[in-house]
């Protein structure tokens, strides 16, 4: 057995079923050993997308997705994917090949100091020096990635370590990390304090972030909300925590959120922020959520509590544990008047759009698309105007809504959708992107075809980098600079080149039947929707 065989054994022991990646000489021992395994390998067309695809796997399975790339440019290309996962606390295991350990630091061909380069975007990283360390390091890496505040872990393995003989292999049953012990259980005294505040509150509100999904606490949160009739709003990363049309769900907060959700945040007298960073896009003015109200901040990462807003009650721990603890406490909520007010706001303050009938209205289209998608479908939104429309109008029932929130990485949707589909082949997976973000990842159409990963793709085409154009419209009074996407390929011909069925929707007239055709069977389809180039979110 050599080091590379040991790595594969570690992945098998962790239940990894798919590795996304791109080989090069420095990772070839790994890709040779994996041939002996049942682990599926998927060749992406650029390394960044291997990390995004692994992110899709993680988010669907709750286990770290794995990508494996070569040294030098392979490793540096994957950094954007790692940074994207880091910003959204998505667990990843990223294996990079490295040059011979004796040559480290001498600038040989395809050498890059990748552990140094990703330092600010990983939860932890390893440079493996001895093959005997592989089982321990992989055991630790999977544990670190998927516990506490989750995140990517990079393991850099020099080629000589991959080739080094290993006398025995034993995958450790437990990790022994003296310095790493995240707090999972909430403090009992703090939990009692929260319940006491809830009893006093007239206008309680829960704001759910992506951490709720990372801790798989959606059911616990929903039953707590339903049991006591407490309304819920969410951040972008928290979309899908509650079914979109749940009577107690009042939409997404923030700059790009719903006015009534923001009003609820401002008017509540008790705000429970859970698994949310209180970041700038969700909470524009952090002082507003601390003024005249009790702020309870629940997060598994103590450093997030008090970073942007000082809470009245800090509560460190895992959301699932904490909501289970809440559930054991008895209390009655009297907030019928508050719910009535919120229902009024929702009716009055819903966004009114006046779409040009010559085009597809993205809001109405997304609403109807998600009406017809399967109940547990996965909707992957890209970044740009399309993301904001998706957040505003996509209906999530028992499925998932995935997007790149913290980093806002264009091109995320197609590779992440591929990862989601590879992990859950029975679920319907739809990626919705703009014509800018599509062109950042369109090389992955080949990956989908080669590996038979049928993702459905919607391209909202306006021939602009719409979000930047909108910004230039407001900030630079229509002085458009470098936002025109002329020169983009004919998507019908492009689809034909890949052998992917193509549909085009030019206006709302044939919207329903086109959506029916788009969703009909479990095959890849590319649907181009022509939208108003001057539309604003």
């Amino acid at each position, binding site marked *: 057995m050599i080091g590379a065989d040991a790595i594969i054994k570690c992945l098998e022991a962790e239940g990894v079923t798919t590795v996304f990646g791109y080989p090069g000489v420095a990772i070839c021992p790994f890709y040779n050993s994996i041939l002996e395994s049942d682990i599926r390998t998927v060749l992406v067309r650029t390394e960044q997308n291997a990390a995004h695809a692994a992110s899709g796997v993680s988010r669907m399975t709750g286990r770290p997705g794995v990508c494996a790339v070569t040294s030098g440019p392979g490793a540096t290309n994957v950094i954007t994917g790692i940074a994207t996962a880091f910003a959204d606390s998505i667990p990843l295991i990223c294996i990079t090949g490295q040059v011979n350990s004796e040559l480290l630091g001498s600038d040989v061909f395809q050498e890059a100091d990748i*552990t140094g380069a990703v330092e600010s975007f990983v*939860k932890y990283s390893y440079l493996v020096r001895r093959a005997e360390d592989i089982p321990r390091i992989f055991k630790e890496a999977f544990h670190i990635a998927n516990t506490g505040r989750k995140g990517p872990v990079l393991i850099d393995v020099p080629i000589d370590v991959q080739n080094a003989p290993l006398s025995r292999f034993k995958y450790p049953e437990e990790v022994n990390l*003296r310095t790493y012990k995240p707090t999972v259980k909430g403090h009992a005294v703090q939990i009692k304090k929260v319940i006491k505040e809830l009893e006093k509150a007239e206008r309680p509100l829960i704001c759910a972030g992506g951490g709720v999904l990372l801790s798989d606490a959606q059911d616990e949160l929903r039953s707590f909300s339903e049991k006591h009739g407490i309304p819920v709003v969410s951040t972008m990363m928290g979309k899908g925590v509650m079914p979109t049309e749940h009577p107690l769900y009042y939409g997404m907060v923030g700059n790009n959120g719903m006015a009534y959700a923001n009003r609820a945040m401002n008017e509540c007298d008790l705000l429970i922020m859970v698994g949310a960073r209180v970041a700038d896009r969700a909470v524009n003015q952090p002082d507003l959520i601390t003024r005249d109200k009790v702020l309870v901040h629940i997060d598994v990462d103590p*450093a997030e509590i008090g*970073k942007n807003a000082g809470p009245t009650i800090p509560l460190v721990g895992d959301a699932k544990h904490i909501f289970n603890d809440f559930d054991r406490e008895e209390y009655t909520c009297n907030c019928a008047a508050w719910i009535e007010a919120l229902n009024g706001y929702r009716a009055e303050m819903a966004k009114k759009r006046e779409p040009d009938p010559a085009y597809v209205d993205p809001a109405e289209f997304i609403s109807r698309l998600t009406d017809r998608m399967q109940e547990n479908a996965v909707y992957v939104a890209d970044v740009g105007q399309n993301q904001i429309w998706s957040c505003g109008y996509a209906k999530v029932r028992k499925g998932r809504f995935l997007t790149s929130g913290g980093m806002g990485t264009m091109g995320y949707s197609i590779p992440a959708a591929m990862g989601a589909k590879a992990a859950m082949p029975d679920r319907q997976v739809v990626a919705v992107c703009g014509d800018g973000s599509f062109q950042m990842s369109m090389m992955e159409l080949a990956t989908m075809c080669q590996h038979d990963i049928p993702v459905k793709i919607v391209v909202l085409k306006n021939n602009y980098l719409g979000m930047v154009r909108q910004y230039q419209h407001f900030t630079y009074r229509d002085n458009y600079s470098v936002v025109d996407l002329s020169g983009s390929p004919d998507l019908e011909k492009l689809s034909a080149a890949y052998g992917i069925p193509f549909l085009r929707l030019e206006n709302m007239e044939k919207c329903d039947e086109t959506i029916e055709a788009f969703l009909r069977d479990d095959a890849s389809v590319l649907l181009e929707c022509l939208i108003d180039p001057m539309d604003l979110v």
Partner: protein
Amino acid sequence: MQKKVYQLLVNNTSGVLSRITGLFSRRGYNIESITAGVTADPRFTRITIVTSGADEILEQIEKQLAKLVDVRDIKELKPDESVYRELIMVKVRAAAEQRQSVISVADIFRAKIIDVAPESLMVELTGNQQKIDAFISLLDGYEILELARTGIAGLGRGTENVTYIS
């Protein structure tokens, strides 16, 4: 703006110091001084960091440091509950006629003469920062050729709040 001294117990692994200093630089925190050295248990390194900032920044520094996977323990070394020491080495220009006066300044501070050359003296002094600053200001009248200072190392007093390594 407040100054605080933190003591960290961290894994003695390669790259641990760069992870800590990297955290300071990318989040824009100040490091006034940092000293590191292996402990009695070779698996661990003890680091003393002097930093400054507003209260909420100091709170973040503490939390972000505590979050690092390699950090076993972090605590503030409060001035009245701790002992700080710093070491300096200073090379002063001193020909034969000035030698005695430099030595007498050094004697007052219980500093040691550790090298004598025809044109210079090298003095070593250990103490807290005030003592060291006072010593340096007294050397103002001489020409300081070179000066090296370690930054402070510190330990809490007594047996309370000691992190035992299991």
